[in-house]
């Protein structure tokens, strides 16, 4: 500063340089930190608590100065916090919707008074989230709080929700989970990452000032994400949701496996996102915005620039011109600089050419914005992006190739596409396997736009009405699907490999009374298992062998997935009314075979013939209900307060793997089957080991139906072995599992890379109960819960006037 003030008006008149950036004020935030003696406690029961003898974790600002320290919570703090949260939950959920809504709105007023402090603190902690953004979120969620019982009747809050985030998670992503959870009447324990901890503590304090009951929002800080797992262990926690980077997400998933608490993860940080420029784009705008997106200081996603071949020269020329003279981007450490240098060197070694704003400074924790031209999906800088301001540029030939290139990534968070051609824009938006598509714009965030990572980018939807349902459950579901438990010590590599009772060749050679041999159903054909062997199905009392069914395994699952993946895209593209007709036909087919199915239920479960008849009848009805739902499951346009058009579209997950419940073997199966295919999915079903016969008998109905071959598959055999096979097939996007606690734990531990959406129901063998689900009921909320779990959301933003 001293050097520049000596410059005369004439010097500046000639150089026309910009004034040096004035340091932004941070007095209010510093005063708040000073008030807390620079040592922040935990926020429990509406007050800061500083238990003695806790470790602390110090937080530095961007210049390396120590800002403050946070307390590392321990077991005692967690249980204190959890019981506070239970009290808070009672107080909070007993308020009326109107009162809850008012609290959120009052926080808007409180933010009006203390907005300066919030924004300065966010700035200091590099967790930037402007007070205006928070106000928008609060207003949006206060209206949902008000209308919860009106628009979502028959849904209740889950209970105590833990929101966990990694160190690099933004305050926006964190609040996008906290606010809807509160708005729906849950109490929340925030386990923030390092840089969001101080702002989260401040917001919790301001919430109290706005009248939030004590305990409804608590904040526990720690040294890393393992605190999240410790919190999840507490029996009072109903649901854990995570936002942040992938590594911590995987760590949390593995650590919480077997605790009997559902977990959803949104690993948005570090996802690779395509930025696609078509020949029909406004190239100047596209180039300006890709520079803005890719080279900002705190980069949450890794953009990859994809340019159509016939405009690549023009784009490159513009990039050169627009990058020239841009300042270096600060890196977080010298170590990061080494990584960037290594990545650039490797890219150059493989023939990449660079567009840089200036030569990299010899050695400093900064690097100039750099475009790596001439790289390919096989290049390390694309496959495993390094930190720093690097932007790989790849070339595509045609519109379809753009989609292929854009989809060829494990991530599925977002994409930005640039074209003035509306048809192309919408077609591309539809075909990209990502949760958010921004047309002629990028990084448009608003609480009413659902953010739903596809593929490896997440298992939950945040934002929008769509994002509220993760914090609700149907009022009629009695008990939590997963009872809390302690993880069982288990060798994951041995799960499902235990010796199975092999079918004994019946000694009785009387063919008339010999048990029937059933076939399974793979790729539209009734067939034996690949292994060729069978397992015996016991009669209800367990005394005798009822039948033999194929002993399916890994290869049967492989074949089924192959067939399913082949037909699913076509099924998804079918008109909803066409899907409805197929389901109606299936219902008709079932009705025609009602006698057979009823007998199989009777024989298998020992239910009376009347009861069995009733189950078949209910099943026919259930199929019709789902047929009717086919064209009622829809998205809509969203009221984003910006100039443009926003759409939210439900899309099928793809191929689902289901390990079926024991109870009501036919009814539960058709309910799940129809929910899956009504929404456009393909399905691979594993009937319960105990009661497979009704499902196997249903194969004849499937065979005579007009469903495309491979859409529905049935594989029988050892449940555990097939669970392992489903878990280890990357094409399967989601697993719904009714089975043992070990199985649940195995899936939670295993289905992390790639991520699978899990719906787990622990059924206790003796009682035959299955996660409290009563299959005979068909409340709208129960059905909605099912179809919402069978789809993932895509939001499309088109910036228009």
């Amino acid at each position, binding site marked *: 500063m001293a050097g520049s003030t000596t*410059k*005369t*008006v*004439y*010097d*500046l*008149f000639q*150089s*026309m*340089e*910009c*004034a040096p*950036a*004035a340091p932004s004020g941070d007095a209010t935030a510093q005063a708040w930190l000073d008030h807390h003696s620079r040592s922040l406690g935990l926020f429990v029961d509406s007050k800061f608590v500083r238990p003695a003898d806790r470790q602390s974790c110090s937080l530095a600002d961007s210049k390396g100065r120590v800002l403050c320290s946070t307390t590392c919570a321990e077991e005692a703090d967690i249980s204190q916090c959890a019981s506070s949260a239970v009290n808070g939950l009672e107080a909070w959920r007993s308020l009326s919707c109107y009162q809850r809504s008012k609290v959120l709105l009052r926080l808007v007023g409180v933010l009006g008074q203390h907005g300066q402090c919030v924004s300065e603190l966010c700035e200091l902690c590099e967790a930037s989230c402007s007070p205006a953004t928070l106000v928008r979120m609060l207003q949006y969620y206060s209206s949902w709080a008000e209308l919860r019982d009106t628009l979502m009747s028959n849904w209740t809050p889950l209970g105590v929700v833990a929101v966990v985030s990694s160190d690099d998670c933004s305050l926006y992503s964190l609040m996008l989970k906290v606010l809807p959870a509160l708005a729906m009447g849950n109490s929340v324990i925030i386990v923030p990452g390092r840089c969001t901890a101080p702002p989260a503590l401040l917001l919790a304090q301001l919430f109290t000032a706005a009248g939030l009951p004590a305990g409804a929002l608590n904040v526990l800080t720690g040294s890393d994400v393992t605190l999240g797992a410790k919190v999840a262990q507490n029996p009072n926690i109903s649901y854990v949701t995570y936002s942040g980077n992938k590594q911590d997400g995987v760590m949390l998933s593995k650590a919480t496996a077997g605790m009997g608490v559902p977990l959803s993860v949104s690993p948005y940080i570090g996802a690779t996102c395509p930025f696609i420029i078509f020949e*029909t*784009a*406004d*190239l*100047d*705008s*596209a180039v*300006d*915005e890709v520079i*803005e997106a890719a080279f900002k200081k705190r980069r949450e996603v890794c953009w990859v620039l994809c340019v159509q071949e016939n405009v690549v020269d*023009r784009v490159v*020329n*513009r990039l050169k*011109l627009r990058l*020239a*003279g841009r300042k270096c981007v600060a890196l977080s450490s010298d170590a990061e600089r080494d990584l960037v240098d290594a990545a650039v060197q490797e890219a150059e070694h493989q023939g990449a050419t660079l567009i840089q704003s200036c030569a990299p400074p010899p050695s400093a924790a900064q690097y100039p914005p750099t475009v790596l031209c001439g790289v390919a999906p096989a290049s390390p800088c694309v496959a495993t992006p390094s930190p720093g301001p690097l932007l790989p540029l790849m070339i595509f030939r045609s519109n379809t190739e753009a989609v292929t290139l854009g989809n060829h990534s494990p991530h599925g968070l977002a994409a930005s596409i*640039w074209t*003035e051609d509306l048809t192309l824009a919408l077609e591309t938006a539809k075909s990209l396997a990502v949760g958010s598509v921004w047309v*002629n*714009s990028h990084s448009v965030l608003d609480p009413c736009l659902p953010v739903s990572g596809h593929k490896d980018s997440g298992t939950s939807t945040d934002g929008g009405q769509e994002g509220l349902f993760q914090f609700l459950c149907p009022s009629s579901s009695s008990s939590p699907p997963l009872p809390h438990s302690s993880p069982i010590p288990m060798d994951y590599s041995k799960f499902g490999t235990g010796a199975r009772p092999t079918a004994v060749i019946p000694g009785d050679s009387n063919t008339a009374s010999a048990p029937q041999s059933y076939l399974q159903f793979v790729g539209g054909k009734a067939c034996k298992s690949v292994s060729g062997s069978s397992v015996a199905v016991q009669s209800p009392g367990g005394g005798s062998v009822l039948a033999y069914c194929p002993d399916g395994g890994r290869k049967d699952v492989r074949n089924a997935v192959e067939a399913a993946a082949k037909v699913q895209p076509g099924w998804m593209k079918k008109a909803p009314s066409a899907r409805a007709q197929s389901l109606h036909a299936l219902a008709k087919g079932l009705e025609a075979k009602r006698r057979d199915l009823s007998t199989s239920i009777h024989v298998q479960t020992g239910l009376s013939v009347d009861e069995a008849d009733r189950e078949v009848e209910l099943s026919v009805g259930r199929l019709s209900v789902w047929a009717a739902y086919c064209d009622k499951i829809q998205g809509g346009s969203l009221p984003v307060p910006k*100039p*443009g058009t926003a759409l939210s579209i439900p899309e099928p997950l793809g191929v689902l793997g289901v390990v079926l419940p024991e109870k009501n073997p036919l009814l539960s199966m058709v309910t799940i089957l129809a929910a899956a295919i009504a929404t456009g999915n393909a399905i691979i079903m594993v009937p319960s080991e105990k009661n497979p016969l009704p499902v196997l008998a249903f194969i004849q109905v499937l065979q005579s139906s007009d469903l495309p071959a491979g859409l529905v598959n049935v594989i029988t055999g050892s449940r555990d072995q097939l669970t392992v096979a489903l878990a280890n097939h990357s094409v399967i996007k989601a697993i719904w599992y009714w089975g043992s606690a070990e199985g649940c734990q195995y899936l939670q531990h295993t289905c992390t890379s790639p991520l699978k959406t899990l719906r787990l129901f622990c059924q206790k063998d003796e009682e035959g109960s299955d996660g409290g689900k009563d299959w005979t009921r068909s409340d709208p909320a129960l059905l909605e819960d099912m179809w919402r779990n069978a789809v993932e959301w895509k939001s499309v933003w088109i*910036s*228009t*006037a």
Partner: protein
Amino acid sequence: MTSSSKSIVSFLSSCSWLSDREWISKVRVNTQAVLRRAQHIQGQKIPNKQWQTAWLLKAVTCIDLTTLSGDDTPSNVHRLCLKAIQPIRYDQLEKMDMHNKGITTAAVCVYPSRVADAVKSLKAANSNLPVASVATGFPAGQVPLETRLQEVRMAVADGATEIDIVINRTLALTGQWEAMYDEICQFREACGAAHMKTILAVGELGTFTNVYKASIVAMMAGSDFIKTSTGKEAVNATYPVAIVMARAIREYFLCTGHKVGFKPAGGIRTAQESLVWLTLIKEELGNEWLCPHLFRLGASSLLADIERQIYHYVTGQYAAFHELPMA
């Protein structure tokens, strides 16, 4: 093929990137992205203290000090010319050590009939400040081509060294780009050695895409500057439209290596706005364009506000109007 279409085709094929004749029709401008960009630029920090003063003085040197009224007479044109020579009080420039740095406006701009008066006044004051004249049926351009050409020739004959022509909006709106190119070429010829600034009248072109196309055609036809508007349309110089024109200038430079100047005009009244304009040019075209050869501000009342800001910088006081010499 007419001679005009031949000439545009030959121009197009002289640049390899333009070898496709349909290039003009392929131009795409995304309105919302341009508006966002404009908002981004308007949201940038405005320089303060000596930076602001230096920038404001730069703005002064880029002003085409303009009077375009029905009641212009030799006397008010005379006052305008003397103001153009000494736009900021000498004593104040002296305090900043800027008194000997040749701070004048870039030119004076008048109607063709007043060119002779302006030339006379400037000559009498021993100044070689250029006189700019609007021409070609300003502001509507709805007069026969021959009349418009004659107007240019007469203004040049009277001593105008810069001519601000208006394009024929009828041709632009009906997509007759080749005919428009041909007309502008004829104006160019009529201008002779005088600089030609082409007014696109962006407020009447309807879309950003038309603005971009008109900019390219005007530059192809040999304009030294492209100018936003006459100041007489309903919508005049706006930042979004300036971004579109600046991008066209950049594209033209990328492809031909020729630097064409930019002149926003109409509605620019405050010092603050002039700083945003300088920021916009700096962001979109770079520092190189921040000089009177490549950037002009068409304005009449802007200067008074800049004077007040500079007065405040020098003295720490807010000036009363009578403390500043009137134009």
